[in-house]
């Protein structure tokens, strides 16, 4: 659908879906845009950099065919203190909705799902030393 969607994805952090116990599952959230909204993203210089949200509480912002991914404020609050970020290696090719990592709190792990297809060009290295940035600054530094 998306013609040349976003060609590369800069993964900062990602989505919220609790996975650590058999009973957990991903239920759709009451707010956040449908996946279709993400598909509507076209690349192009005239496009303003707008933050789009997925069902799983991730956001993605694209600029010059590079997308930046993070999680929403609601997600970081629900997750609690992030103590570890499991992120993919630079160069990894991702498909939309593919699991690419996880955010861990003391209590549980939440998997990250790519909102776009593309190749990882950069990961937020600051999160290795300071995973709490996801909580403190989920739209900028985390």
């Amino acid at each position, binding site marked *: 659908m998306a013609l040349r969607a976003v060609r590369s994805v800069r993964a900062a952090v990602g989505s919220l879906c609790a996975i650590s*116990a058999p009973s957990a599952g991903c239920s759709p959230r009451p707010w956040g845009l449908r996946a279709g909204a993400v598909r509507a993203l076209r690349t192009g210089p005239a496009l303003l950099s707008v933050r789009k949200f997925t069902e799983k509480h991730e956001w993605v912002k694209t600029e010059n065919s590079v997308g930046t991914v993070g999680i929403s404020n609601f997600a970081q609050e629900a997750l609690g203190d992030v103590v570890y970020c499991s992120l993919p290696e630079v160069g990894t090719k991702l498909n939309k909705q593919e699991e690419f990592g*996880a955010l861990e709190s003391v*209590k549980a792990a939440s998997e990250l799902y790519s909102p776009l297809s593309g190749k990882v060009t950069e990961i937020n290295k600051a999160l290795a030393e300071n995973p709490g940035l996801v909580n403190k600054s989920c739209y900028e530094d985390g």
Partner: protein
Amino acid sequence: MQRAGSVVSRLGSRLQALPSAPCRSLSCAQDVLHRTPLYDFHLAHGGKMVAFAGWSLPVQYRDTHVNSHLHTRQHCSLFDVSHMLQTKIFGCDRVKLMESLVVGDIAELKPNQDKVRELQNKGSDVALEVMDNALLALQGPTAAQVLQAGVADDLRKLPFMTSAVMEVFGVSGCRVTRCGYTGEDGVEISVPAAEAIRLAAALLKNPEVKLAGLAARDSLRLEAGLCLYGNDIDEHTTPVEGSLSWTLGKRRRAAMDFPGASVIVPQLKSKAQRRRVGLTCDGAPVRAQSPILSPEGTVIGAVTSGCPSPCLKKNVAMGYVPYEYSRPGTPLLVEVRRKQQPAVVSKMPFVPTNYYILK
């Protein structure tokens, strides 16, 4: 906030999959949760309530999980553990009843009642009564000091695993036991239900004390190497496999007069079975059901509990491995999300305990 509540209730349903009181849990309807005498108190203090083993309990309050955990180790925290019901046992054969039960944890009520009836039918003098009491746990290095201000008894004379009845902050008829499930010094106070809120409020007046919920309780007990029934031990584990042989009294081992003795006592001398061990590792946190592998990559066991340790800033876990891999220092692998990472068998407790033991 409504949405936060719906996420937290999913956390609650995760917790419910891991009951620590196996008998009185999922048999009741999902929407009918038992409430402890402190239910309204929890709500008034910002408690986020979740379903746990058929009870509505706070998973945390306004503090973050990590802050609540660390506060317990540095100051003290107050937990409502009233879901662990208390039973009074009467009759001159009450010791016989106790000894006929599983060694160690005797919290289940149903088996007790069957056993009571069985003994009564044989002419024994014994009866049970569930007490209308709440149970408050005050845990942490300053717990004793906080409590001392409200009791006349000298708490220096109440060592670990001893108990006394006393008036606490004006509430009479409280039983104070020097025990807990966090690895810290502390007490569990059995208080008549009608006075539970009054006592909790009195304890909370001391700025040392903060309320803590199930989230902190779980990470604290894990750091202390304590088992969560349903995860680390269950009906399929023996005390020997669970590395809990110390619970079997010397006389009882010789007499072999407890359920399962014919299986358990021979295991004491054998090295044939699996063992519960502690594991530490860096990298991604290790959680229940993660496979444990030998250094060569063969699956040899599974993790039963795990979390990132707020105190140690490493990942800690418990799991079962064959006896030959159970020595502390043994290098192993754990698989997390299809990736293998190195782990080391470690002695427990992971964080040193501070039980008040008189020398």
